[in-house]
């Protein structure tokens, strides 16, 4: 009986040790998984709250071919919840990136591109041969300011007509 009692006690202690270890591993693993999910969620949330749209008249995008380089001017509106970072602007005109030749100005004058401000974008190029009423494919990629450690990104694509 005494042997039986000792065996049962050993089994109990072993069960407790095993269950304790398993619990510790489970909690640890779940913590890691939860953390990864949270990181992923914050990234997704940043993307969902970041939005940019074309503003103005897509049928009349100003294009000045009387100066060199030629200038295309259009406006963007921050339609998301996060403040956008105009310095991250990437502009693609008819499939060609012109990011190194743009000027972005917040309208009205300010330093924060939030949902009540526009961004005036002037794009310069020497290689364009566009004429009045030409259709152009415009793509813009922009990122938000870093919010809660994350930066959201949004892309805008639109077909516009140039007004020389």
């Amino acid at each position, binding site marked *: 009986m005494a042997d039986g*009692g000792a065996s*049962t*006690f050993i089994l*109990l202690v072993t*069960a*407790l040790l095993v*269950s*304790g270890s398993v*619990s510790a591993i*489970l*909690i640890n693993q*779940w913590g890691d998984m*939860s953390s990864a*999910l*949270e990181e992923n*969620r914050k990234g*997704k*949330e940043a993307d*969902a*709250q970041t*939005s*940019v*749209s*074309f*503003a*103005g*008249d*897509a*049928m*009349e*995008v*100003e294009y000045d071919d009387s100066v060199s380089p030629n200038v295309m*001017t*259009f*406006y963007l*509106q921050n*339609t998301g*919840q996060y403040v956008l970072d105009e310095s991250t602007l990437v502009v693609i005109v008819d499939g060609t990136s012109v990011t190194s030749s743009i000027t972005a100005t917040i*309208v*009205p004058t300010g330093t924060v591109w939030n*949902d*009540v401000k*526009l961004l*005036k974008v002037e794009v310069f190029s020497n290689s364009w041969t566009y004429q009045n009423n030409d259709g152009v494919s415009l793509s813009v990629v922009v990122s938000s300011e870093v919010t809660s450690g994350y930066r959201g990104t949004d892309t805008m694509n639109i077909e516009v007509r140039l*007004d020389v």
Partner: protein
Amino acid sequence: MGASVGIGGLIIGMTMLVVFSMVVASIDAKVDSSLQTIDSANEALPAFTIDDATLWEGAVVDVQIGSGGSGYTNGNLVSSTGNGGFAGTFTVDGSGAIIGVAITSHGNYSSAPTIVVQGQTPTSSATFTATLGNFIHSNITNTGSQITPLREIWIFSDGDNPTNLGSIYPSGGNNPHWYSGETLHVQWAESGTLPVSRVSITVKGVSMASTLA
């Protein structure tokens, strides 16, 4: 010994329950958060119409006080020449001299009208100089379900010269909004290059354009 086994089983069971409840609570929080994200991403787009849009090229855009006169009380200004529809108000100082003018209706004229005080007999008369310019009038209707702050609405002429509706609409309120079904009569001075042929409005990324009459 039986009691020890029972207690041991209870401890194991409790441990498992704690782990299980942590998992459930964590999953629940994630689902709530994800649903909120989905909800915010599916916000309805604004819907609106430009009912009409007219360019008046002879609107009174400025009235300068030449002489303030004396013996006036706060009152109204009208045009004594033409029937363009100008109207305004003025304020006076302690001596009854006109010190401020506000235009309430810009009207439309072929030449600058003569502006006079309506219905008062002053000690000495005031004089004014009217300046004509371009004004766009438009009626716009919110046909959607969204209530939009006017400061998030932008008006363009020929795709340029963005004007914020919150800065020009005389609602008198703080952070006024455009409610569902509401029609706004919007008017603003057009200082850009003439002729202007189209006007467009952008609301939260939704743009609509109309040819000017």
